[in-house]
């Protein structure tokens, strides 16, 4: 949950621009693709940060 919450927070600003006819519908809707790619990469980066923290914890235990 700690992992998915930051990802969900990404959607908050999107709700405000998602109405019909808004900017998300211009330019062949390329922004939708851009946001999808961004979400995937941010998700991967967050996962890496969590992994980093877990390894740090293990190192401290030793």
């Amino acid at each position, binding site marked *: 949950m700690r992992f998915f919450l930051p990802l969900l927070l990404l959607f908050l600003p999107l709700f405000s621009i998602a109405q019909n006819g808004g900017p998300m519908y211009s330019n062949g809707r390329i*922004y939708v693709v*851009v946001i999808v790619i961004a979400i995937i990469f941010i998700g991967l980066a967050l996962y890496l940060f969590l992994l980093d923290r877990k390894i740090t914890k293990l190192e401290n235990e030793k």
Partner: protein
Amino acid sequence: MKGSIYKVLGVLLVLYSMIYGLLMDIPEDTFLEETIRNLFYHVSMWFAMVAMMGGSFWNAIRFLSTENLTLDRRSFCLAEMGMLFSFMGLLTGMMWAKFTWSTWWTNDPKLNGTAVTMLFYLAYFVLRNSIEDTRKKARISAVFNIFAFVMMIVFVGILPRMTDSLHPGNGGNPGFNIYDSDHRLKIVFYPAVIGWILVGTWIASLRYRLKTLQE
């Protein structure tokens, strides 16, 4: 916290290249059309690979002069990350080639040179795993690593430039800058390269720390 600045920076730079690289206006009237954007993604994989292998090479040299096994571990993890980048570069390159040169693979010197380089590095991993004794393993693989790095420079950096190649900037082919008179591509390409190098270093460091914990 201070040590993770480069991680955040790397993530932000890659994210910037993904978002702005898709949204920016590209130079028009090139035969590459929209696929010129692959410059930010495909080419930066290779730059990151060379950087990872360079780091691996540097740690191999330092290992040989100090006999410090942590340097050997570093060298190995960086080579592993470089290998991942080269596979990503190869697969994306094949994709791009299919829709630009209309074939998945050509006998372009750069492609074959890369394939040879990857075989050298695969041999490095096989060699490493075939030796039991830790010190012996580290020493022999460090020597092989130096050899593989030099071969990479020859096969990827020098030979394709001496013959005809389909790749830009090789064998009399113009480089990417002819498509880009106002350097628009560079403001995404260079950050992408730096970003991927930082992210690659980060992942390699995670692998290194895990390997250290295991031993």
